[in-house]
């Protein structure tokens, strides 16, 4: 009877396992395999060993996209973590918390592609630059998304804010569900203001902070849609991140081998950082 139950339990999870195996595991194995070939999407695979990985590091575009990715990650850790935390603290103390929650969460309901399209129109020669030009700032009457290297900053400003709402909600949940006893005790001991937050509230909020930081980190590494919509990685590939370079090499240039090599490296980087970050954080927490 017990054995029959065990068999049936496996059947329950079989569809999920099948889905994960077909659409995730097989894809990972296939990507890993073609990263060692020179496949162009047509014809037979030719095994080329590690030459795609070597070629990637010799490619100036790849190195530039690594730098751009690091810029996105740095910005993605500051804007979508610090600002939501400040907003969450302010909103939990506000009388209109529900209204503010909705206002800040609303951009999250819009897809990244739509935000990219709106921002592209807003920043086009018929948008904000023209308005500033009419106000006398003629130097700013330019297609900002076309200025190499500057456009990365413009795109970060134009798209990173979208993640603020979700992270802010997580922080609010963390703040609301926080045990009140230690805070009350600290207040009775005379703690207040910034000291109360840095010494009591933020340490108590640490599990939420860990999740938000990790999510923002992974999202920053994966940034693709807004860049693809706003600049396509251009001009002359100066605004590409690793995800855009991966897509462009794979699907635009038909270098599926090289694109897969970049995909493998990007996955390994994210996996390594995630494991390292989680292990380091929880080990420190355990040792306390």
């Amino acid at each position: 009877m017990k054995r029959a139950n065990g068999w049936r339990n496996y059947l329950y999870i079989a569809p999920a396992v099948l889905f994960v195996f077909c659409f995730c595991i097989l894809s990972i194995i296939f990507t890993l395999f073609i990263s060692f070939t020179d496949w162009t999407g047509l014809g037979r695979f030719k095994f080329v060993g590690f030459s795609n990985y070597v070629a990637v590091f010799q490619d100036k575009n790849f190195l530039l996209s690594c730098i751009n990715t690091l810029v996105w990650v740095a910005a993605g850790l500051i804007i979508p973590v610090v600002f939501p935390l400040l907003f969450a603290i302010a909103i939990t103390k506000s009388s209109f918390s529900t209204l503010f929650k909705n206002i800040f969460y609303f951009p999250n309901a819009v897809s990244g592609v739509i935000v990219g399209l709106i921002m592209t129109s807003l920043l086009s020669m018929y948008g904000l630059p023209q308005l500033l030009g009419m106000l006398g700032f003629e130097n700013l009457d330019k297609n900002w998304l076309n200025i190499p290297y500057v456009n990365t900053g413009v795109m970060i400003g134009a798209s990173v804010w979208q993640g603020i709402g979700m992270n802010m909600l997580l922080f609010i949940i963390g703040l609301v569900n926080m045990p009140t006893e230690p805070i009350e005790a600290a207040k009775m001991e005379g703690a207040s203001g910034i000291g109360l937050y840095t010494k009591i509230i933020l340490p108590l909020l640490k599990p939420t902070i860990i999740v938000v930081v990790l999510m923002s980190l992974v999202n920053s590494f994966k940034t693709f849609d807004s860049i693809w919509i706003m600049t396509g990685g251009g001009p002359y590939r100066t605004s590409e991140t690793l995800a855009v370079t991966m897509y462009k090499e794979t699907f635009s240039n038909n270098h599926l081998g090289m694109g897969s090599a970049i995909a493998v490296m990007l996955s390994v980087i994210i996996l390594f950082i995630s494991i390292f970050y989680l292990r380091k954080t929880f080990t420190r927490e355990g040792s306390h």
Partner: protein
Amino acid sequence: MKKIVSISCIVAVLMLLASCGSGDASSSEVEFYTDKGGENVGIMNSMSDKIKDDGGVGFKTVGYTEVTAYETTVQQSLDSDKAPGLFTWWSGDKLKKLVDNDLVVDLTKEWKDYYEKEGVNPSLADAFTIDGKVYAAPFSVLYNGILYNKHIFDKYNLEVPETWDDFIKVCDTLKANKIDPIGLKNDPWASFLWFQTLIASYDPDLYVGLTNGDIKYTDPEMKKVMKIWQKMIKKGYFGEPVDPASQIKMFSSDKSAMVYEPTVTSATLKKDYNMEPGKDFDVFVPPSMTANAKKVIFFEASPIVVSKESKQSGDAKKVLQSFYKKDVQQIFVDEAGIINTDNTKSDDPVNGSFVKEAADANKYQLLVRYYEATPSEVVTVATDELWKFFYNPTDAMLDDTLNTIQKAADGAFK
């Protein structure tokens, strides 16, 4: 009972999974995939209806608007019998790759028996010929010319330039009057448009040699052409590259005087910007830099190919046999401005006249544009490098651009 329900659920999931890849093999209509989706889908469906009304085999259009997604989807399906019977592709190197992998049907005989009889220009077959066999039929043939804003030209008493010096004078006058002489679009691939035009205006043979690997990008003559381009950029003849919609908007709102585009853009200017062809704008061919030399018109021939492995390949050939019939193609001319055969009539004085005039071999030399005429490995590098040069047109960058493209060409033509 619970066991029966569980097993039924699993079977249902497996059947659902299996059905995902089954395709629509039973459909009587040939699937016609195209990257030229959007409003073309409706127009093509009307063409299919017309073919069916005439008793032929119809087709079902599956339109994509994202080129990369389209290319990937088609490539992945081509080695199975579920491949679409017909699909649009790119001529030149990309078509050759399909031929090299034995994925498309030889249409040489069909050209003689059907397409040419319906008025398709026989010389277009050259753009689709690989190793002596023709592997495609034209979906659209787009001829590039310089569209100019007549209001601006009239305002500054400018004439259509007949010589290169005239052209430069026109640009100088416009620049002096704070009008962008030439509007540009910032599409990643679009950097080659003026590159190809300047080479062909300088010497068409230089262009032909460059695209087939006989002449190097580092050739001194190429450097001379790049110097001309450099001078034009530095003098501010080109406006700031903007997205394609803004490029046309700037042209229609008198901010830029000329755009180098396929003449089929005339239909968009009329429909979306209320510009009357012939009255508000017109077109001319870029002048040659050599006196009495033939002017060059670049064309882009987008091919339709028949998938070899597809279950529908027999019917697909039948669709193409009807596709060029006069009444079917007239729909394409009226609705999209695309002129493929010489027995249709266009009431667009800009597009229609230009296509007719382009056929005059005594006046013009037709050349396949750079994107299709050059191996894709070279185009990929060149389009990025040419933008790099455009944004930073120094002497050092000029040399670096030509050297980098030549490196890619060395690999492609070895």
